[in-house]
């Protein structure tokens, strides 16, 4: 077994064992932290699909995270107040059912990514970074100035949405649910990366001209990857909103985009488990350093600077060696 695979298994087991241990010793706070790690890891896995596999440096993924969150918030708030979402041309009611909400969060995330991607992928490099950042900010300002769903104050959801057969308000059950979703997403991305599409996308990242010469259109490959990436990040936004039972414009903020990117980088760009490792590291650091100093972002910044300047490849790169399987 390769060292990276071994490491991945260890990470997955660790993420499972810690909350179980916390459950046995009745420490729900730890379970909530682990749930947060898992959900943010899903957001990172979404970005990693665009960034790691497609080489698309998107600094606007908070847009999809927030869209997923608001998809949940809007549906649940209508169900909560028993008012239909719309009556004409057809009646749409709100819902408190997680599977429906997840589906809609992923679809709206994908749609947002399709539109943003179709525009921003007309450019490359530094333009792409600035444009995705700007569109993310557009969603942020829109959420602030749109008063129907809480505006600047955000939108509280009083009871967590339901999943058939589970009590989602029980921390360990909600954790298990999110963990299951993460495993499915990881499986999906792993299969995608190994598929013909994944290979073509990887090729387009490394040399777009050559891929074009074989008869593929890089723009389409990128757009599909970006859309799927938005769908996954949207899904994680819905899970995150359900964890907090609260949606607010901060889900759209540029800091959020930056943090999602940090998960990917701390773990290792292009590694399947990079975002999982990165999100774990981030939340652990936030918890430990945040306890020492309220200015813990200084240490985070210094750490990030060191990783970028001296330890490219992230934590997995340090632990498992430089070689990446698909390169």
């Amino acid at each position, binding site marked *: 077994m390769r060292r990276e695979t071994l490491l991945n298994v260890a990470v997955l087991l660790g993420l499972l064992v810690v909350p179980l241990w916390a459950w046995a010793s009745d420490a729900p706070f730890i379970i909530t932290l682990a749930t947060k790690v898992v959900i943010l890891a899903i957001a990172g896995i979404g970005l990693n699909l665009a*960034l790691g596999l497609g080489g698309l*440096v998107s*600094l606007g993924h908070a847009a999809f995270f927030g869209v997923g969150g608001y998809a949940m918030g809007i549906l649940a708030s209508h169900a909560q107040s028993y008012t239909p979402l719309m009556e004409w041309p057809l009646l749409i009611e709100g819902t408190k059912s997680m599977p429906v909400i997840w589906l809609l969060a992923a679809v709206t995330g994908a749609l947002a990514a399709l539109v943003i991607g179709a*525009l*921003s992928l*007309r*450019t490359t*490099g*530094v*333009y792409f*970074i*600035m*444009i995705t*950042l*700007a*569109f993310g*900010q*557009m969603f942020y*300002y*829109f959420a*602030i*100035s*749109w*008063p*129907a769903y809480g505006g600047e104050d955000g939108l509280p959801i009083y009871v967590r949405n339901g999943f058939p057969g589970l009590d989602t308000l029980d921390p360990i059950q909600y954790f298990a649910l999110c963990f299951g979703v993460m495993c499915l997403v990881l499986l999906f991305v792993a299969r995608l990366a190994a598929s013909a599409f994944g290979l073509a996308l990887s090729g387009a990242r490394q040399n777009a001209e050559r891929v074009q010469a074989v008869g593929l259109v890089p723009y389409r490959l990128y757009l599909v990857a970006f859309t799927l990436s938005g769908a996954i990040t949207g899904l994680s936004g819905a899970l995150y909103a359900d964890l907090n039972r609260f949606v607010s414009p901060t889900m759209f903020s*540029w800091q959020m985009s*930056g943090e999602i*990117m*940090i998960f990917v*980088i701390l773990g290792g*760009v292009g590694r399947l488990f990079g975002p999982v490792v990165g999100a774990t590291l981030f939340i652990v650091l936030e918890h430990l350093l945040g306890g020492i100093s309220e*200015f*813990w*972002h*200084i240490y*985070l*910044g*210094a750490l*990030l*600077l060191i*990783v*970028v*300047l001296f330890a*490219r490849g992230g934590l997995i790169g340090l632990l498992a060696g430089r070689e990446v399987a698909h390169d």
Partner: protein
Amino acid sequence: MSIILLVEQVLNGLQFGVMLFLMAAGLTLIFGVMGLINLAHGSLYMIGAFAAAATAAATGSFVLALMASLVAAAAAGALVELTVIRRLYDRDHLDQVLATFALILIFSEGTRWIFGSFPLFLEVPDYLSGSVTLPGGIEYPRYRLTIIMIGLAIAAGLFALIAKTRLGIQIRAGESDREMIGALGVNIARLYTLVFALGAALAGFAGALIGAIQSVQVGMGEPVLILAFVVIVIGGIGSIKGALVGAILVGLTDTLGGFLLPHLFATFMDASAAMSVGSALAAMSIYILMAGVLLVRPTGLFGGK
């Protein structure tokens, strides 16, 4: 809606635009010459504002405060360039984004640590407060008018610098061929530090000028930074002319959108709905402008290639 109000809003848009130009000009120069995307440019804006507020509080002089903003931002810029930024020129954009994002975290929290979380206030001096009467009987704040004048003067100075001086020639040469000007004996490392400090000084100066209108607080730079990115996308990377045109377009669209759209919707909707739809759309207007420019000219209005 009166014509006087409209003129006032146009002037406000112009004032916003010239301040955006000061930010965007530095960013676009830095990108054009060094090929670097600098997210920490908003931090330099913040540093300028804090330096000005602290100096004004200590000395009571607004002119000294403005000079302090220039010096502090330029010094911070040069320091960052010498320690961190110069290691990034050969790296890809992803590394540049991350390292400069890390710098934002360090600068923001460092400033919060020194000055605390509460906003500071920078007073407009007596000789710039009050309002002036423009032709046509329009009353307009003297300070905002001064900002427009200063901004336009700096823009003119910057154009002269790029077109006429030795430094300007080196900057233009650096934009077209970095290796060649090094081979011709120009000290590239020094040129890069100089350009970075110049961009930083412009950002810090803008921060100080705006700091007297809004409050001076941590995190004030990033929203302006993102708007400056929109300006650059519209104007085209590396073009000072593009930055000026883009900045004024964005300034006017933002200000007039927020003013006109609610009025426009009020003509066929009830007032409160018009207000909410109008203001939500106005919040998106500059991004829609950006999307429009991207559809027509993906490299911006004045971008090359």
